[in-house]
């Protein structure tokens, strides 16, 4: 089975506190640590586990620029056979619809049985997989947390409310958005990354993808972010300060009082 996984390079929120820059029009991007979007990493691992059973290859693709090379190579070090960078000045300022259009154009020029995305990335939009599926006229399922390969179709479960799992059959080719926890992504060492350092990663732009540059980028974007801001806190928490011993005493007192303990 040929599997395409769409990945994105994002600021790693477990490594960074996200703050506004001094102008208030963006987040502070100096010194941010970037990594592959957590959901996407689970998707790559899932693709690798599937091809391990069925044969075939995993390709990772991203929309971005040369800075994104590092995450493609990281995922190739995990075992993805190919990395593809979709990059063009015309892509700048694309909204989710634009990104999906670029990815769909790449899929139309190649043949994949299965396309995976993460459920969401740093903007929490959870949109690209569903948009792309509709553009390709492929069936789609979101929040997928298990995949079993059958003949020409998959048996999948979706994570729904209350820890319940919604079981579905879905025909191939299809697009699935992958939820964290579906597997345990393998560790990637420096050595693995070195081994793929010289593998060629092709770059495709509007002409290779047969894309009308007016259909992507900022001018085509119907949705545009205007600013970043931190909303005025509601009541907010009363922050306990002072020595740790003092804080411990106060916390125990509060837990007992509010929890009805003696």
């Amino acid at each position, binding site marked *: 089975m040929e599997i395409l996984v769409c990945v994105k390079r994002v600021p790693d929120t477990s490594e960074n506190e996200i703050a506004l820059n001094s102008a208030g029009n963006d987040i502070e991007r100096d010194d941010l640590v970037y990594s592959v979007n957590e959901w996407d990493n689970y998707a790559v691992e899932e693709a690798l586990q599937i091809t391990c059973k069925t044969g075939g290859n995993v390709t990772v693709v991203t929309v971005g620029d040369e800075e994104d090379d590092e995450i493609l190579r990281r995922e190739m070090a995990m075992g993805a056979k190919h990395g593809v960078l979709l990059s063009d000045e015309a892509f700048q300022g694309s909204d989710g619809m634009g990104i999906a259009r670029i990815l769909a154009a790449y899929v139309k020029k190649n043949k994949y049985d299965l396309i995976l995305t993460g459920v969401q990335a740093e903007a929490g939009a959870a949109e690209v997989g569903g948009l792309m599926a*509709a553009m390709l006229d492929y069936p789609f399922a979101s929040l997928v947390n298990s995949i079993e390969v059958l003949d020409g179709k998959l048996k999948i479960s979706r994570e729904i409310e209350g820890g319940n799992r919604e079981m579905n059959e879905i025909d191939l080719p299809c697009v699935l958005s992958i939820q964290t926890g579906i597997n345990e992504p393998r560790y990637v060492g420096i050595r693995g990354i070195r081994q793929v350092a010289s593998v060629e990663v092709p770059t495709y732009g509007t002409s290779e993808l047969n894309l009308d540059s007016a259909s992507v980028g900022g001018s085509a974007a119907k949705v545009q972010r205007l600013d*970043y*801001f931190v909303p005025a806190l509601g009541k907010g*928490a009363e922050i306990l300060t002072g020595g740790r011993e003092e804080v411990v005493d106060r916390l125990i007192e509060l837990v007992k009082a509010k*929890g009805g*303990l003696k």
Partner: protein
Amino acid sequence: MARIFAYIVHKGGVADDSASELIAAAKKIDSSASATAIVIGSGPELDAVCESLRSVYAEIWKISNPSLAYPNAELVRAALTKVLPQGSIVLVTHDHFGLDLAPGLAVKQNAAFVSDVLNIEGIQGNTVKLVRQEFGGQVSTHVRCDISSGAVITLRPGAFKAAGNAAANGNVVDKSAEVGELTARRRYLETLVPEAGDVDITRHDILVSIGRGIQEQENVEIAQELADAFGGAVSCSRPVVDAKWLDKSRQVGSSGKTVKPKVYLACGISGSFQHLAGLKGNPFIIAINKNPKAPIFQVADVGVVDDLLELLPEMTNKLRETVK
């Protein structure tokens, strides 16, 4: 002004609470708008839902079809595409069903798509100004959406205050005939309910709840010791389950358990909306987190900016001393 539709989630003949949140959001786009509810399903349950919405929506479109007895988003999208006028604004709740349905619906309607919206700050010409969050709620953004060819907008559950009963004797319009036969390349099979875990976190008054900040599996014991000292239980947020450090039955949140403790100690939990959705009954929330910007501090009653790996054992020791 484009026509506004609200997709109603329902179960067992009862409309979800979000039904009245959607109309509140519609009023924020256009205060004079009388949004139309769309209710899809089959059988007498569907009629019960339509009837209950007559006091909320002035118009209710009913789509009855045996293949829609279970809301398979692929079929629902196909049905909606047949009845929705081009250029409509469609409001959908940002839940597991909305994630399935809404993006593709926007493509099929040639409409703009914005998801997980927390507020709507009004409309100017063909542009709606919306509020979203990024980075797990650490920052907010204003977003401009061009609705000239319609829009599909998903709304965060609970973000819009439910409006009172806005309509009287809403009109139910049966649109079933326009839908006809539906097929999809995805078929619903069944819903699996998880087995009960070793500990029922829904029955405890004090929960020591851990998130990514617990860092390693062996540190879970630190939380367990504190929970034991308080006579409570250990619960957790999603990353702890993803890492397989605790069973899924310990997870609090929209995809886990809904709990209603008296005291909730959120230790190293950032406080995503999916997690907070699992907290009911207005518990007293104590947040312990190294990151002073963690969104959990916005909803907690009391917060401590500290390393939980040091603070929790000290609390445990102190409790054990006082018992002696």
